[in-house]
């Protein structure tokens, strides 16, 4: 195989990992994005290509195109020991149980005591492994459930992920049950209970299973709650979209009970009132120089100061004395009423009327026309004409 490790000893492996720890840390950190370029890697190995090549030759990393990735075996190792693996590997627990059963069979068939002990040690190791892996799976499952709920933005995928994780939870539970059945009921296994070391391991494993069992119950609750919350959010989203549609169609009031609801509630945020518009006490404002200064400051800030009035000079005696100036205004209604009370024709009436000011003949003619037009309904216009100076005018009487 191309990626077969050529490390001759554990020493070599540890040394190599230690030497290239910066590069390995960086590649591991970028494992999800898969975009760790060879150029970036070169920077971390002081541009010595042979160091990268050494890692490739020993199956620690591999190069695809211009990108570098950790070999799967190292990736899984790091994820496992650092407790960050995201995959819940139910198969590995299943494998453990199968190996366990095989070794129990070998143990029972083996007459040689030394070899029997060898199988016992394998069985112990596998039991420990099964317990630990189950617990690890449960912890991973719990973390993955939270991550799926909190970080997956797409609702459909989120629900699907949670449902898949729920299936995994069910598989882990089934495996625990299978394992417990094996310990409790398998006759062959029962005969192993007498071994004191093995008895301790079994007790440890039972303890881990109990812990896993409780955790699985709480995970189940959590998944149900999350799915419920997602469904609720989904329903809410649909409802908001429908409401928006109705609003755009201007039919929200007819198609919903919104008017009834707003009549029943009266939260302050919906109100238009300004409750916090407090009037300051005038007495307090006039109480000190400090206040006057503050008012000036506020005034300046608001630009009020420029508009403030300054004191005008005192009025002179001449300005205080009473003076009258007649206005050149006439009350047409009053004139009309007076005209109606008499029997003269309109133009003669105007000529003889006692105006307070002297008027020109043009002004009198204007007034004549104005009254005739304004009160045309109340006038009787005769066919006779008269002449005043050079003006010819019709004789108009009040009806």
């Amino acid at each position, binding site marked *: 195989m191309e990626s077969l490790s050529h490390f001759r000893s554990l020493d070599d492996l540890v040394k190599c990992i230690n030497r290239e720890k910066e590069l390995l840390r960086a590649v591991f950190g970028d494992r999800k994005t898969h975009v760790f370029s060879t150029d970036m890697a070169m920077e971390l190995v002081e541009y010595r290509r042979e160091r990268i090549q050494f890692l490739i030759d020993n199956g620690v990393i591999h190069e695809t195109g211009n990108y570098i990735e950790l070999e799967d075996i190292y990736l899984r190792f790091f994820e496992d020991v650092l407790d960050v693996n995201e995959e819940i590997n139910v198969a590995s627990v299943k494998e453990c149980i199968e190996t366990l059963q095989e070794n129990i069979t070998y143990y029972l068939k083996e007459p040689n005591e030394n070899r029997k002990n060898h199988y016992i040690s394998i069985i112990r190791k596998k039991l420990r492994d099964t317990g630990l892996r189950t617990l690890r799976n449960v912890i991973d499952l719990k973390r993955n459930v939270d991550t799926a709920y909190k970080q997956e*933005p797409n*609702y459909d995928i989120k629900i699907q992920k949670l449902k898949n994780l729920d299936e995994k939870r069910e598989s882990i539970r089934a495996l625990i049950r299978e394992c417990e059945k094996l310990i409790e009921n398998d006759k062959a296994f029962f005969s192993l209970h007498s071994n004191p070391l093995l008895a301790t391991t079994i007790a440890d494993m039972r303890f881990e299973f109990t812990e896993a069992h409780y955790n699985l119950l709480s995970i189940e609750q959590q998944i149900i709650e999350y799915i419920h919350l997602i469904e609720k*959010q*989904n329903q*809410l*989203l*649909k*409802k*908001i*979209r*429908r*409401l*928006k*549609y*109705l*609003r755009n169609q201007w039919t*929200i*009031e007819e*198609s*919903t*009970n*919104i*008017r009834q*609801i*707003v*009549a029943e*509630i*009266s*939260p*302050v*945020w*919906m*109100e*238009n009132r300004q*409750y*916090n518009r407090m009037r300051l006490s005038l007495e307090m404002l006039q109480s000190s120089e400090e206040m006057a200064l503050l008012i000036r400051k506020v005034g300046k800030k608001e630009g009020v100061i420029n508009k403030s009035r300054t004191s005008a000079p005192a009025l002179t005696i001449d300005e205080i004395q009473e003076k009258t100036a007649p206005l050149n205004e006439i009350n047409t209604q009053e004139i009309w009423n007076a005209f109606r009370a008499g029997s003269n024709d309109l133009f003669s009436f105007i000529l003889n009327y006692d105006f307070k000011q002297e008027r020109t003949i043009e002004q009198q003619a204007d007034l004549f026309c104005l009254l005739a037009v304004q009160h045309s309904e109340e006038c009787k216009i005769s066919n006779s004409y008269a002449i005043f100076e050079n003006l010819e005018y019709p004789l108009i009487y009040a009806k």
Partner: protein
Amino acid sequence: MLNNTQAIYERLIRGSFLSVDSTKADVRHLYQDVEDNYDEYVDYFLQIGFRLESGNGYFYFSTINDSKADIERRLESFCKWIDYLDFFKSMDSSFSVGYQFNKTYLLNKIDMEADLRDKVRHFFSQQKSFSEKVDKLIGELESMGFAELIEEESATYKVTSAFRYAEELVNLLTIYNENEIPE
């Protein structure tokens, strides 16, 4: 013993909410105080004409005077929030309590999605640019206490528990013949 009547009044009277998960220590302190002395505070504020209402992780004021004359105004306020909710939920369906966002993120989303652009265009006619409109929109969330600035440098906001109020308000509504209306 009611120690924070003034601080609580001043916050709630503006139509704002008190949230259990506020990032501001003083707000959390007020929330705790109201929770510990809820009945006393309710009685106290009733005397000055306000009902102290409690929800799932939030408190707010409503008025006792249920004047029918204000219904149009309330309808308008409610509808305005339907528009905002529609925008935020369309932008990201997981927009709810605990959600974090910043202005750049909102503007990027608006820039990429024509549908969102269209929604925002109808908001705040006084503000012309999308940037100004988004500022105003965040301001609306903030003034209600529905979102709080949690990191100044990146201008990141977090949606508080009080946002549940807006969601619960929508749930109060009944749409007649709901299934016949397109989503």
